[in-house]
């Protein structure tokens, strides 16, 4: 990571901290802000957040490792998370799974070669009455069918 890149990350984090307050309780919103922009929170960003919030880097790392929506390693620009819990499973999760893997040519847990899409599982999205459900970045899609998968994928740029 070069100096310019580092400086821009520091600036970004400073902005987020100004927005949410210079307190350890601002950690989560700050992490979410960085995650949203970079799809992951780099080693450098973690240490900068720790320095600016006056906490220890390992605490930041601990929080990131706790939440499955926060990552310390780079991911695709978009993340598709398919609900893997029992209701969606009964409502045809497997077909959606196959369709996603077939259309993207990757397995779950992997990222496409152009770093555009990462496939992951999620636990219950709370859409059991409208399953199978998946979530693209922060938008939820319900009653997904293999046909709809293609539409959804076409909608991601």
């Amino acid at each position, binding site marked *: 990571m070069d100096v310019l890149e580092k400086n821009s990350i520091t600036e970004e984090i400073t902005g987020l901290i100004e927005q949410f307050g210079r307190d350890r309780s601002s950690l989560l919103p700050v992490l979410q802000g960085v995650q949203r922009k970079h799809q992951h929170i780099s080693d450098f960003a973690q240490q900068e957040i720790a320095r600016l919030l006056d906490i*220890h*880097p390992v*605490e930041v*790392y601990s929080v990131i490792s706790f939440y499955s929506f926060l990552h310390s390693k780079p991911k695709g620009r978009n993340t598709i998370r398919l609900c893997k819990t029992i209701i969606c499973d009964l409502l045809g999760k497997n077909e959606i799974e196959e369709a996603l893997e077939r259309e993207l040519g990757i397995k779950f847990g992997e990222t496409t070669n152009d770093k555009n899409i990462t496939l992951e599982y999620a636990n219950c999205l709370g859409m059991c009455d409208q399953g199978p459900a998946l979530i693209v970045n922060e938008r939820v899609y319900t009653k997904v069918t293999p046909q709809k998968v293609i539409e959804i994928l076409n909608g991601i740029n």
Partner: protein
Amino acid sequence: MLINDESRAPVSQKPNKLELPAEKEGIGSNVTIEINGEKVTVPFGTTILEACKNNNIHIPTLCHHDDLCIAGVCRICVVDVEGMKTLQSSCTFPITAPIKIKTTTPMVRKARRHIIDLMLSEHFGECYSCVRNNNCELQKLAKEYGVDRYNFGHIQKSKYDVDKSSFSVIRDMDKCILCKRCVRTCIDLQEVGVLEAVNRGIDTTISTFLDKPLADVVCINCGQCINRCPTGALHANDPSDKIWEAIDNPTKHVIIQTAPSPRAAICEEFGMEPGTSLTRELNTALRRIGFDKIFDTNFTADLTIMEEGTELILRLYNALVEGNAEVKVPQFTSCSPGWVKYLEHFYPEFIDNLSSAKSPQQMFGALIKTYYAKLQGIDPADIVTVAVMPCSAKKFECERPEMRDSGFKDVDYGLTTRELAQMIREAGIHLPEMPKSDFDDPFGEASGAGLIFGATGGVMEAALRSIIELVTGNKVENVFQNAKIIPVRGFEGIKYVEFPIEGVAEVPAILKPLIPDWKWLEGVTLKVAVAHGTANAKKVMENIKSGGKLSECHFIEFMGCPGGCLGGGGQPIPTNAKIREKRAEAIYAEEEGLTLRKSHENPYVNHIYANFLLDGPCGELSHKLLHTHYTKRGKFID
């Protein structure tokens, strides 16, 4: 209503104590509760655990530690509170109403037994091959609750690699029970912040930033986490096998130096109450084990005072009289390797304030492999030096590349109190029954000033005794009763003391080449401070950084561990404030019985300046052998 405590721990981890009423007897200040049918009155806000402890009712604990904030994560201390749907953890439950508690109902016993069984199901390894065998809280609980089989199975395969990267601390996560005591020690007690729980649920482990090996993160090797680990998950890097090898090798001349704190604490390893120094018994035991020579680290502690004291005076002279802006004041002590590494990581910009004098351990190593080797006609390559220290960071210190000024590794092995006790046991010796014997020549006697290095404030007291006498020409006994400088003693986190200098004497011969006269010190008020534990050190550093009162100090003593060396990471387990107090008492009591109590009066020290370090304190040779330099490490990890 939470008590405003200064630690940075999140509210959820702070002691769950309600503000106690100001009056002790007024209405609402006491609550009468029922424990196992017996009525007891306790102050409002006491936790159930405290209430039971005060009334001699035993409640098992695991994640609870006297030095640390409350966590309530292990649940072993659960009790039955009447009217509550579930069992309550007694360590986190403040008493605010006349509740009825039962501590031994079938439900409580079953819950506790299940918790132990669940911990054992994930606890890899066998007790007899564990470093904490017979001193393990999990093992003790298993015995207490009569575990005779693994109800939930027992893990058969190791899940984690043992992290042996650090010279000082070894982490074996297979033995971890996730009580988070090490996390609280590292983050709250020491404010170093190396360890935290990472991942979630069943995948949770205690780890470092980015799961790096311990040697690659900002660990200062203080070993406080080892002292608080209930199991064998954390232990020191034990060199005793190599030491046995050296002892058994007839061509090796094995020398051991013993520091004051291990001598004041090793009795605990042999079933004695804390608070007895076994200095001379230890000498005999070490001889029987097979060490060729036994020296007293206090001798080089005296030497440290001469070197560091001279350095301080030169620093002050250059800064105050000559007006040299490059000379940094206050001077920081450099005896504690944990503190040194802390400064290198967290305040590298203050590295020039650190005294360049080596710690007593390293000074001794350098002297043994030069002066002593020449005196005895032994090839330094055949000398093995071992240092008994209360400290795990000393293991790292002797591995520093700059600690090879004698041309060899100055100190070959740092041995902790616990490891030495193990060696003594292995040799079939019961230490308390040993006859007494003295240290070996040519470094025979050391002063009491060196002895009190073991307690927080000790280095300062030793330095002040010499500085006061050498500068004012007045006997310390005339200024402080019995030469006890009480203001710098005790366990207060940060102590700040002022000493006005009234009247100066002639500069003693040993310092004459360096300083023309003392006139510039006439009427000056000497300001000193003492801090122990890196959390307090951090407060001092922040105060200095912001230009506070402590930035005006001339000399500050820092110790990496709470209580100073006697609370070090290599000392017997368990530790708490009371035990540390007892150890301090033992050290101060031993010191008061000595006749020689000032470093500059030590005839052996004067002998070495007359015969070996010919250009005096801070001279060329002592700079080569007894002084060092430091590394700006910083805390960023690439």
